[in-house]
């Protein structure tokens, strides 16, 4: 779901770890295809008879597992707290979403028993499962759901992203478990939204108290203790509506913001499972039979690493300058230097193999001569020399990366200054448009429409804009609208291919590579990526850094 941008606490701390906002979706995992959309097609760990993340043998009940996450969150209230991948992992532990994305990429009912549209997809009826209770014993019913949705609508954080998607909410008369949501226009991907941050249903008591520290959900575990930046302990929910689950007695999450420290913690058995996006960790542990590695799936979109250009300020407002910047970056070299042999260049919004990716989107390839020529052409309009300020958050890998990019731009004749900014200010600058060129990581989603609010020209105005790049392109908006409202898949495919082409032409984003998200567990943790849906089909599973602990069990 379009997670709200500004306080993207991927790193609780000074962001020794990159990235800002994330439009998150529960992208899923094709199971044997642990070939990451980013991976080099290399298999993960050489486990003799098992697939990483899929448990061998019968599940064992009992035991606890310690999981290391890459950031800390600021609270457990979906309408006001900023949920990055860690936040969504916590949410999966304590709450349930109305739908969950299946291995084939479709959103299937989970906490809801059905999600049914009307004929033109302008209204959706959500029917809840019966007999589900929250951790405090209160029942899950339509009243609670209505209250939840209205809170999300009213909140500034989620309200913007839901604008148009949730216009009004009403109980279905005579049915204690059904709610109808009316949308401002046909929203084809509505069920997908219910699998994201706005799909979590919290208990009435928490809604009324607006507590960010005492979560009341329907999820597989309930809160025992939360010490911010130290640990989150949870215990099994004995009345969980999925009978038999979860297997574990409890879990402990430890936020460890330093990539290195987290990897060391896993290797020293301080933690049993970790989430990382550091390609170095993947390279280090890939061939090690003691660890199971699960990479991003091939279904849906993965988070992209890119440089975002502010199209509303000089000189990045000049398309010729943006083209020069694009031509000057040797993406292959960049990925070679910093991708640890794991990441691969990807010059599109969509990963290879995605239907929405056109055969040739027209993105500018590396061409230093062309870049120089364009610089010479544009320079007179910008006072003779083109000067760009490139910044990133404080992360050792990213810092080196921007120095390399700056050097490449320098070769083309663009004077680049490089700086590092701490995360809160960084996000603030993105939101208020006080930047020229920043590195960023975003756009992971199970359905392209989930990124609407980040890409659309309609959100590019005002002092606070969720479309950080602030690019205004009517053709882009048309294509986005088509993808949003047309239910014919062929039409949608064409529409999003057009989106990709428009972005490649307008160049608000200089693509680099797909983020190398990975969850790595020691042998002790079994089945951490094997969620089965109530109807028996497989869930998409781990993607873009989001875990679901429901199916895990402990080996010993």
């Amino acid at each position, binding site marked *: 779901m379009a997670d*709200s*941008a*500004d*306080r993207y606490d991927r790193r*609780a*701390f*000074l962001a*020794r770890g990159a990235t800002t906002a994330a439009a998150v979706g529960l992208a899923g995992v094709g199971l044997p295809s642990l070939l990451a959309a980013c991976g080099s097609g290399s298999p993960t760990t050489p486990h003799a008879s098992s697939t990483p993340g899929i448990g061998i043998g019968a599940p064992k009940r009992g035991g606890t597992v310690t999981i*290391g996450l890459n950031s800390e969150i*600021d*609270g457990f209230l979906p309408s006001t707290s*900023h949920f990055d991948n860690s936040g969504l992992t916590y949410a999966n532990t304590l709450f349930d979403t109305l739908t969950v994305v299946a291995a084939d990429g479709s959103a299937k009912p989970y906490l809801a028993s059905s999600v049914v549209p009307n004929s033109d997809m302008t209204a959706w009826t959500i029917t809840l499962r019966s007999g589900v209770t929250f951790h405090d014993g209160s029942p899950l019913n339509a009243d609670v759901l209505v209250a939840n949705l209205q809170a999300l609508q009213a*909140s*500034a*954080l989620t309200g*913007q992203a839901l604008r148009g998607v949730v216009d009004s909410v009403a109980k279905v008369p005579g049915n204690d478990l059904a709610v109808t949501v009316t949308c401002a226009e046909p929203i084809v991907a509505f069920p997908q939204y219910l699998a994201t941050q706005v799909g979590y249903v919290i208990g009435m008591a928490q809604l009324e108290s607006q507590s*960010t*520290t005492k979560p009341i959900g329907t999820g597989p575990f309930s809160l025992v203790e939360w*010490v*911010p*930046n*130290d*640990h989150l302990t949870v215990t099994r929910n004995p009345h969980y509506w999925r009978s038999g689950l979860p297997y574990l007695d409890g879990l402990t999450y*430890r*936020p*460890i*913001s*330093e990539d*290195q*420290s*987290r990897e*060391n*913690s896993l*290797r*020293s*058995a*301080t933690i049993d499972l970790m989430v990382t996006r550091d390609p170095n960790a993947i390279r280090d542990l890939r061939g090690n039979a003691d660890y199971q590695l699960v990479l991003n799936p091939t279904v849906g979109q993965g988070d992209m690493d890119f440089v975002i250009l502010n199209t509303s300020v000089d000189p990045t407002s000049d398309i010729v300058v943006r083209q020069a910047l694009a031509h000057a970056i040797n993406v292959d070299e960049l990925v070679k230097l910093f991708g640890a042999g794991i990441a691969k260049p990807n010059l599109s919004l969509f990963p290879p193999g995605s239907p929405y990716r056109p055969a040739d989107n027209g993105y500018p390839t590396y061409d230093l001569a062309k870049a120089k020529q364009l610089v010479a052409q544009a320079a007179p309009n910008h006072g003779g020399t083109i000067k760009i300020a490139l910044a990133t958050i404080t992360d050792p890998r990213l810092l080196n990366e921007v120095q390399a990019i700056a050097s490449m731009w320098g070769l083309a004749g663009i004077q680049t200054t490089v700086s590092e900014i*701490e*995360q*809160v*200010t960084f996000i*603030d600058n993105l*939101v208020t448009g006080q930047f020229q060129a920043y590195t960023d990581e975003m756009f992971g989603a199970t359905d392209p429409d989930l990124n609407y609010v980040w890409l659309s020209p309609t959100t590019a105005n005002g*002092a*606070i804009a*969720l479309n950080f790049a602030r690019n205004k392109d009517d053709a882009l908006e048309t294509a986005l609208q088509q993808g949003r409202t047309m239910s014919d898949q062929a039409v949608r495919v064409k529409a999003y291919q057009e989106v990709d082409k428009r972005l490649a032409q307008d160049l608000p984003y200089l693509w680099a590579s797909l983020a190398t998200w990975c969850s790595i567990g020691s042998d002790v943790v079994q089945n951490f990526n094997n969620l089965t849906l109530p109807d028996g089909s497989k869930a998409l599973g781990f993607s873009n850094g989001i875990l679901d602990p429901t199916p895990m069990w402990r080996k010993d």
Partner: protein
Amino acid sequence: MLRFTASRLVQLVVICFLISVFAFLLVHLLPGNPARTILGPNYTPANEAVLLKQLGLNKGLVAQYGTWVTNIFHGNLGASFLTKQTVTGALSVAVPIDLELIVVSQVLALLVAIPMALFAALRPNRAFDRVATTSTFAMLSLPTFVAGPLLVLVFAVTLKWVPATGFNRLSQGLGPNLKSVILPSVALAIGSVTVYYRLLRADLIATLQEDFVTMARSKGLSTRYILLRHVMRPSSFSLLAAAGISIGTLFTGAFVVEILFQLPGIGFQLVQAIYANDYLVVQGMALVAAVAFVVVNFGIDFLLTILDPRVRRA
């Protein structure tokens, strides 16, 4: 003696007051305001005004200071604007960590520095002394952000003797607790060894040249006896004083180690709060850290007054 103690206590209170004012002012000098961070995309000047009123930030500085101090005397140090966690809550997590880090690291440093200094003082400028001096300077050139990763690589990742990150509270057992604290403490101790060694060695050498030592020697007492019984005590004063400053600054100074080992101590939480413009948390943490420094040093000062007869004031 009593008057002396009383006047010292008055000074302590005055200094704590000054520090509180200083902390308050400094925090309010921070550009930006928490409203932006909290409101996020909902930021409009109107909403900001409402939020600031809610948080009590729209009143004048003096009024805000007054409210803060009054609250402190009621035991309420405020709460984080963002996580809503109380400052006292955060401190109850941070202080045990820092205390343990400080105690263990300084004890380790002293355990190394004192014997080294004793040995070197007995044979100044000879082989051992030279080697010791050089190696302690090597230690000074080994900052915590180098020592930390190296220690982790060897002892946690390769040997798997201790965890790489995290703090195990005492309630989880002394063994796990010490194991989680030993590596960061060693990293912190390294820098202190140099200072303690040099101080003690110099003092010992000086004291050994005093007349009363010569006299003791002439009485036939062994050097070792003299060293331990007569010389250690008067020579330990600069050591104590340095320890005071060292300990005091470590409350916030250990931030590198805290980040590397993911220990949410005062330094760690302070930096985080500063970035988020979380005023009350910054003020509270800074005040506590500074007051701790003052109390520790006053305590040591007092100790010195008792131990060193030359200092006694009428």
